[in-house]
């Protein structure tokens, strides 16, 4: 009888160890995968943001609306008016400026979309013309929202939309945001880019 009790206890201890071992193994695998993903995403974040600022400042891309922290309003409007990817490719490659600026921002393994917008010193979104922002929403169902009323990135906005944290639609699995201080219309603003990403495949 005593022997049976010892067997049960030993069995319990052994099963607990096996259970814990399995649990730790699973958690380690999840953690490892998550770490890898974080590294990938961190790399993606660095690449996207640095490429974006470099591309924007590169005069080879034509209408560069950002120079020495100053926003050229006329050139920004032209940039906004460009389609990211025209149905009919432009014969003059360099006319497709938006595509060029946002070109190469995508990182292998990620489907990435962007929303570029401005927030003034009072914390309100300052639209680009009538629109909240400008960017790339390349895939159906992929939407980026800014402002109080879930305005789409390229949707119509009032003159002073109170700012709230922008967000990506449920389609995406990752989001990160970067900002630069700029001067637009003689006012200090934060130029923000929200990047929504989803692992491809």
């Amino acid at each position, binding site marked *: 009888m005593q022997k*049976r009790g010892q067997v049960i*206890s030993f069995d*319990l201890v052994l099963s607990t160890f096996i259970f814990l071992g399995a649990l730790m193994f699973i958690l380690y695998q999840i953690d490892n995968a998550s770490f890898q993903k974080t590294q990938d995403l961190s790399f993606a974040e660095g690449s996207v943001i640095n490429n974006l600022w470099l591309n924007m400042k590169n005069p080879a891309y034509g209408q560069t609306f950002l120079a020495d922290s100053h926003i050229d309003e006329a050139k920004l409007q032209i940039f906004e008016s460009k389609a990211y990817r025209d149905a009919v490719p432009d014969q003059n490659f360099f006319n497709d400026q938006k595509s060029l600026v946002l070109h190469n921002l995508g990182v292998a393994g990620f489907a990435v979309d962007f929303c570029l917008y401005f927030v003034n*010193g009072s914390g309100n979104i300052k639209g680009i013309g009538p629109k909240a922002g400008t960017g790339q929403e390349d895939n159906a169902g992929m939407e980026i929202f800014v402002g109080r009323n879930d305005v789409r990135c390229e949707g119509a906005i009032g003159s002073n939309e109170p700012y709230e944290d922008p967000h990506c639609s449920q389609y995406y699995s990752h989001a990160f945001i970067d900002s630069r201080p*700029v001067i637009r219309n003689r006012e*200090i*603003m934060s130029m923000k880019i929200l990047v929504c990403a989803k692992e491809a495949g």
Partner: protein
Amino acid sequence: MKNKKGYYLVIDSLIAIAILSIGIFLIRGSLANSPSQIQGENLAHDTLSFLASAKVSDFCDFELSICWGPLTNLEIPKNRNNSLLGYIGELKKNGRQGSITDLIENSVANSHILNQNFNFTFMLDGSLFYPRGITKPEDINGYKSSPLVSSSSRIIFGHYDDQLPSDPFIQFENWGPYTAEARVWAK
């Protein structure tokens, strides 16, 4: 009696597993929400670059002798071609320490340009000018325990023309070199 002991062991192991799992998930959760190194580095560098590239003429009408935005209620810059960072050097030369803090507060801290995950300090020649009323970054809550600190520095120097009311001649005044440093750390 033997059965009871088994129950205790089972309950004990379940509690241990629960505590272990909660601990692991808490650690993983805190890591996932931490701000990235890239954000910190960019923020420190961008803030200083912005101060160096924004001109005082962006915020002043020198013909009307009025300034707005970050230069509201500050004295009219003597060198009209200065950047905001150059103007900070000019203010330091003239002993206007409080105005430097006002300028940083109006141009950086209150302008929604800082990432909410980070705190910000501005130093000139090792002296802290922002946040107000603190002399060393170490004295700020949370600085020492922050997992991420990034810094960006520039050497600044310049000049301006000055004329005292009693002096008919314009004096050419040099200032600097000073070391300006923007330092950010994760909250």
